[in-house]
C-alpha cells in the first residue's frame, strides 16, 4: 500500500518533486509557508491538479496527467485532517465521523463511529456538536473522521497548529499511540521541525517547491546541507529514555542508553518511555570532565564524525550509549580541542535547555529504512 507521488507545476507555486511513502510510515513534508507543501498535499487529495503529476496508491492510479487519469476526491480512498479541521458544524461528533462511512449500513456506521471516537479518546462525547468541543477535541474528531473512510493514505495538514502548546503536547502523544493502529502511509505537512522530528520516520524538506532533502528523520536533522532551508539552528537529535524518578524540586531523572539524564519535570509515571529532543546548538563539548559546573548533565560520548557546513560551525555526531546526539560547535573550538573521530570526550547539557515540548511520551516511532 505504498504511496508514490510525482508532481511538476509552474503556477501558482513552482513545484518539482517525487517521493514515496511506505505503508505504516509517517513522512513529514516540511517547509516554510509558501514552499508548496500544502499544495502538494492537496494534489494527493485531489483538491488541486498540477500540470504534470502522478499519484499512485497501492498500485492503483489516482492521478496521471500523462495517462488522462484524475479521480475526484470522493473517489480516492483518502483521509484528510484539515488545518482548521473543517468539521461539519451542523452534525454531532459521531455524525461527523459517520458521514465518511456512506459505504456501510446505518447501524454499522454508528458502531464504527463510536469505536473510532474511543480510539481518539473521545468516549462519551459523540453527541456534542463541534461548537461544544475544545480545539483539541475537534482535532480528535477530525482524525477519527479521516480514519472512518478506511483510507489508503492519511493526510495531515498542519493538524497541530490551531491548538495551544499544552494541548499540542498531548495530541503528539496520542498520534504516536494511534500509529500502532495505522497500516496506511501517513503524510504530515508541518513547518515545525520539532513536530516533524518527534513524530516522523522520514522527512522531505521542501524549499520553493523543490525537494532539498529527503531521508530518515535522524539523518536529515543532522545534515547541515539538508537543514539550510529550515535553518541550521533546528539541527537536533532524539534520544529514547525511560522515566526513573521525579524529585521534590521539580526535576525528573531519566535513564538513557548512555546514562542518566536530569531534565525539568517530565510528565509520566516512573517506567514510562519518552523521547527527548536535544538541540545541537545547546550541547557543549569538553576534553576532560568539567568540575564545579552548574549544568546537570555531563555525558560520556565518543565522536563519530565531524561535518563542516557553510559558515563558522561544525556539526559533530556523537555516540551516546546506543544513540546518537549532535553538537554544533565552531571550527575554532574543533581546532583548539583537536577533536578527531574516535575521541572519547564529554558532552555538557543544561537541564533547562530542553524545552517542555521537546519531550514526548511514547515509544520511539518505528523506523522504516
Amino acid at each position, binding site marked *: 500500500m505504498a504511496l508514490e507521488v510525482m508532481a511538476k507545476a509552474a503556477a501558482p507555486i513552482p513545484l518539482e518533486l517525487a517521493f514515496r511513502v511506505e505503508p505504516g510510515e509517517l513522512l513529514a513534508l516540511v517547509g516554510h509557508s509558501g514552499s508548496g507543501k500544502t499544495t502538494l498535499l492537496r494534489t494527493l487529495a485531489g*483538491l488541486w491538479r498540477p500540470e504534470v503529476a502522478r499519484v499512485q496508491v497501492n498500485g492503483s492510479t489516482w492521478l496521471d496527467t500523462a495517462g488522462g487519469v484524475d479521480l475526484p476526491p*470522493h473517489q480516492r480512498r483518502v483521509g484528510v485532517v484539515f488545518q482548521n479541521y473543517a468539521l*461539519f*458544524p*451542523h452534525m454531532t461528533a459521531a455524525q461527523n465521523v459517520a458521514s465518511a462511512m456512506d459505504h456501510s449500513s446505518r447501524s454499522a456506521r454508528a458502531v464504527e463511529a463510536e469505536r473510532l471516537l474511543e480510539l481518539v479518546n473521545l468516549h462519551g462525547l459523540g453527541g456534542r456538536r463541534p461548537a461544544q468541543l475544545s480545539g483539541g477535541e475537534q482535532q480528535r474528531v477530525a482524525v477519527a*473522521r479521516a480514519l472512518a473512510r478506511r483510507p489508503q493514505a492519511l493526510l495531515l495538514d498542519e493538524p497541530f497548529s490551531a491548538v495551544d502548546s499544552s494541548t499540542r503536547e498531548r495530541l503528539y502523544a496520542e498520534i504516536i499511540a494511534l500509529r500502532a493502529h495505522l497500516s496506511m502511509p501517513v503524510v504530515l505537512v508541518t513547518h515545525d521541525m520539532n513536530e516533524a522530528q518527534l513524530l516522523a520516520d522520514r522527512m522531505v524538506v521542501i524549499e520553493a517547491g523543490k525537494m532539498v532533502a529527503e531521508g530518515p528523520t535522524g539523518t536529515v536533522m543532522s545534515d547541515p546541507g539538508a537543514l539550510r532551508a529550515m535553518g541550521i539552528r533546528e539541527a537536533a537529535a532524539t534520544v529514547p529514555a525511560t522515566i526513573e524518578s521525579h524529585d521534590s524540586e521539580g526535576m525528573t531523572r531519566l535513564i538513557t542508553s548512555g546514562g542518566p539524564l536530569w531534565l525539568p519535570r517530565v510528565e509520566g509515571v516512573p517506567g514510562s518511555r519518552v523521547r527527548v529532543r536535544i538541540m545541537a546548538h545547546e550541547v557543549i563539548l569538553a576534553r576532560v570532565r568539567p568540575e564545579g559546573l552548574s549544568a546537570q548533565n555531563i555525558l560520556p560520548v565518543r565522536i563519530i564524525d565531524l561535518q563542516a557546513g557553510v559558515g563558522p560551525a561544525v556539526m559533530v555526531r556523537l555516540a551516546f550509549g546506543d544513540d546518537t546526539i549532535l553538537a554544533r560547535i565552531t571550527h575554532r573550538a574543533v581546532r583548539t580541542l583537536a577533536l578527531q573521530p574516535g575521541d572519547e570526550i564529554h558532552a555538557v547539557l543544561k537541564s533547562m535547555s530542553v524545552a517542555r515540548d521537546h519531550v514526548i511520551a511514547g515509544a520511539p516511532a518505528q523506523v522504516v529504512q
Partner: protein
Amino acid sequence: MDWTALGLSLRLAGWTVVILLPVAVFSGRFLAYRTFSGKGLVEALVMLPLVLPPTVFGFYLLLAFGANSPLGQFWTSTFGHQLVFSFQGLVVASVIFNLPFAIQPAQRGFEAVPVDVREAAACCGMSPLRSLWRVELPLAWPGLMTAMVLTFAHTLGEFGIVLMVGGSIPGETKTIAIAIYDSVQGFDNEAAGTMSAVLVAISFFTIALTYWLSARVGRRLG
C-alpha cells in the same frame, strides 16, 4: 373582502416559490463557488428586475409574451390559449421578476459555506450531489429560507407587473394587490382596508417565521 383574489395571490406566490427554489439553489451555488469572466455582468443582469420600474419591466414582458412574439406563438399553439392575461403568464412573469429576490440570498447562503468544509465533504467520500444534500443545503439554509420568504412576500405585493402582463381578470389574474386598488377606485374603503390588513398580517407572519427559523439555525450552529 375578495377571497378569490387572495386565493389567487397565494397560489401565484406558492407556484413562484416552488419553481424558483431549484433555480435559486443551482444558480446561487454556481455564482457562489465559481469565478468566470463576465460573472459581474451575469450578477448585474440577475439584479436588474430590482431596479427597473415595474411598468418598464412589465412592458417588455408584455412584448415578449404577446401573440406576435415567438414565445407567445409557441404558447398559443401548444396550450391553445394566450400567455398574456392568463394565470400561467403571471407565473412566468412572477418567476422572472423574483429572480433577484431568490438568487441573491441563496448565493449569500452558499458563500457562507466554508471552502474547506466543502472540500472535507468530498474527502469524506461524498459525491457533489450528496455533499449538496448532507452538508451544503443544511449550512446554506438561512440564505435559502430568506430567498423563499422574500419571493413569497414580494409576489403577494407586486402590482405594476401583474397589471401590465395579467390585466385584472377575476379568478385568473386579479391578485389581492389589484383587488385593493380596484376597491379604492370604487370608493369601497372598507373592503380595501380589510384586504390590506390581511396582507399586512400574512406578510408579517412570513417574515417573523423566517427570523424565528434562522435564529433556531443560529443556535444550532452557534
